[in-house]
């Protein structure tokens, strides 16, 4: 609970440094970017260090991982902010004061350093810098995958679910499934705040690569039902005045991603077994599976433990097609022309950045649709929504180690 609250606080701080940085005497430049507020604070520090406004020369060097667009924007805004503060910027030395700014980076993040040289002596002024929002997306072709970022936290996220609050239009609840609890958060003015949590009674050790899925039905405060799927365990719960979860051992509860197939998670591993009454035997153990929406001609794709991604009709013995260079996670989504599409993760391992690629599945072929959607770390969970219009993705940021929950939509320009 404390960890969750800290995570929310950190997420809020990361998402809204604008509020913290607004109390400065220099106004942000009109050309606002994610760095506008930080630039204002930095310009204030430089101005304070120099003292009386006078002629200065300013040069900016970037040795951090910031791109040239950000660097150029920061330099322009810094020039403007110092100009507004009364400093005359000389194109070339000799100016009375020379200010050399280095956009640097350390283990704690971006670090901006101003070396100020004048007849009075040399000074060094520095500050940590944070972007106030995520970078704006660039112009995109259609169809395009769009990420709606919801939340980041330090403790692992296995899955999450959104539910509307009954009788409160636009208000939503977010359920976060973690290894030891389900927490529920409410959104207020764009910030998620934890309002409750229920522990998951754990009668056995979780596998190292723990997977889980949460399904919420109904609006919160109405008849809200929760189902939580974990390896060797199944939980049910409800959320009315408070969140209540009841778990029991179960090795044969079918998980939702199976579609028409009965897919159960191996109790001490990280993959599904496909079996059950009326289901042909011989399906390979798989990490994920996706089914088409056609009841007359059911098809499915399995990403098997042996590394293959194959398209099947009704028999595991005769795959209709194999797809190469696919990652282990995939999920169905409805394409722009109501086609059957699957989103697939990248290959490699979890030390690398990841991406989602949209494929349209037709005529036994997988055709790339649109461009990659990149993530700053591995996608560790990917689950389809019931309406097939969005995907729930959990990734782990390689730089910060934080888990990030996002909804992925296919934008079709309408």
């Amino acid at each position, binding site marked *: 609970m404390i960890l969750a609250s800290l995570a929310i606080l950190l997420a809020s701080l990361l998402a809204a440094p604008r509020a913290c940085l607004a109390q400065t005497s220099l106004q942000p430049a009109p050309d606002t970017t994610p760095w506008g507020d930080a630039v204002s604070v930095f310009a204030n520090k430089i101005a304070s260090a120099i003292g009386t406004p006078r002629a200065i020369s300013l040069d900016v*060097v970037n040795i951090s991982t910031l791109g040239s667009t950000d660097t150029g924007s920061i330099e322009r805004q810094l020039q403007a902010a110092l100009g507004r503060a009364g400093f005359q910027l000389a194109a070339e030395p000799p100016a009375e004061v020379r200010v050399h700014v280095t956009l640097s980076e*350390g*283990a704690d993040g971006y670090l901006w350093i101003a070396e100020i040289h004048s007849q009075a002596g040399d000074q060094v002024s520095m*500050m940590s810098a944070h972007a106030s929002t995520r970078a704006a997306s660039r112009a995109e072709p259609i169809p395009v995958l769009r990420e709606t970022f919801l939340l980041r936290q330090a403790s692992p996220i296995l899955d999450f679910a959104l539910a509307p609050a009954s009788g409160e239009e636009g208000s939503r609840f977010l359920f976060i499934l973690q290894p030891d609890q389900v927490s529920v958060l409410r959104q207020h003015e764009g910030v998620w705040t934890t309002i409750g949590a229920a522990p998951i009674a754990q009668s056995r050790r979780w596998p190292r*690569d723990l997977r889980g899925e949460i399904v919420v039905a109904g609006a919160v405060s109405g008849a809200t039902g929760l189902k939580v799927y974990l390896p060797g365990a199944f939980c049910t719960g409800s959320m009315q005045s408070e969140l209540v979860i009841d778990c029991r051992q179960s090795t044969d509860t079918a998980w939702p991603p199976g579609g028409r197939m009965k897919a159960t998670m191996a109790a001490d591993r990280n*993959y599904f077994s496909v079996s059950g009454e009326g289901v042909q035997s011989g399906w390979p153990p798989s990490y994920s599976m996706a089914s088409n929406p056609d009841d007359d001609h059911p098809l499915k794709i399995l*990403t098997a433990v042996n590394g293959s991604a194959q398209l099947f009709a009704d028999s595991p013995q005769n795959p209709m097609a194999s797809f190469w260079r696919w990652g282990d996670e995939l999920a169905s989504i409805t394409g722009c022309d109501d086609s059957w599409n699957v989103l697939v993760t990248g290959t*490699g*391992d979890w030390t690398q950045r990841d991406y989602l690629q949209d494929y349209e599945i037709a005529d036994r072929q997988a055709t790339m649709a649109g461009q990659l959607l990149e993530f700053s770390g*591995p996608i560790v969970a990917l689950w389809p929504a019931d309406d097939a219009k969005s995907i729930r993705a959990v990734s782990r940021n390689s730089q910060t180690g934080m888990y990030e929950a996002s909804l992925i939509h296919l934008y079709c320009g309408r």
Partner: protein
Amino acid sequence: MKRRLSIFIVAGSLALASLPAGSARRPRYGGTLRVEIGETIHSLDPAVPATDPAATSAKNQIDALLYASRNADGTFSGLAGSGAFRVTRWEAGKHATLSANNDYPGGRPFLDSIEIQMGRAAKDRLLDLELNRTDLAEIPPEEARRAAERGVRVSTSKPDELIALVFIGGRPVAESALVREALSDAIDRSSIVDFILQREGEPAGGLLPQWSSGTAFLFSIIPALSGAKEQWAGIGGSPKIVLGYDAADGLAQAVAERIAVNARETGISLTLSPISNSASSTGKADARLVRIGLPSPRPREALLGIIREAGPMAGVDAAPLPDPASLEQIYERERTVVGDHRIVPLAWIPHVYGLSSRVRDWRPPLAGETWTLADVWLDTTIEMR
């Protein structure tokens, strides 16, 4: 202040060789990881210390796999079998087999077992990596480029070990500020990195690497030869500096010899003295080359750790810093220590590992961390010889 931006082009120039083709991403269970180390360990009892610093470090890596509790000093302890792996075969000084602990609280490791071969010389480790006879072995940083050129998959940590020259507090020569500054100014740190380390590292002007503090570029790494000559000429009594280094450390010897060349070019009288005792021994030396591992990625903790390690030898006071300390406070402390020239930073070197093509989710440990072998898994679709 002299600029030193060029070093950041050198840093990280040897990237991790790309993973072999495959589709895997989610961890797979099973398999045996074959590890080779250069050190020989004679006991896995956490209460029994290893014989030398290198063996202590290697033993700590194995202890980290066997014991769940970590002590404040970075060593491990606790009940045998509380870690991610258990010892199932042990030949002191030669070989260890570790098996996955099914009851490990963090979840059973993905590997079934780890085979550790001890006492393998660097050239043998390199050869075994080339021939796919091992999955994981540490490579000397100066050999990293050659290993990559010979097809070895190389994984490089951030530079997290400082090579520094420490003047021994109390020695008459070391107590002369002019002597210390003259030698510091005479050393060409870039040539140490370029020629001895084969560009696998960064010249160090400060006590913290750029990736940790973000301020390393503010410290000069450019030799000031004319200034050094003048300072030396102004010192009376024709002092002679004896520089000690670990006789068993080939890299330290090469660096010491390079410093001797720089000293000779500047007119500084310096002789070398190999020391065969432990790391803390100084023999008759006025100064000693040391290698100090960065204890933490965080700049405050890292700086304090380095001063704690080298401070007693140098006679530098390890006064505490506020917690948390501001960027300016950390920088000022670092600047003060470096400006005194009792601890003379020379170069930052990374830890370099060779990996077989089937190793997945290997992350070179961050400063102060140990090998995360519980998270490593093997892609069994990759053919091995």
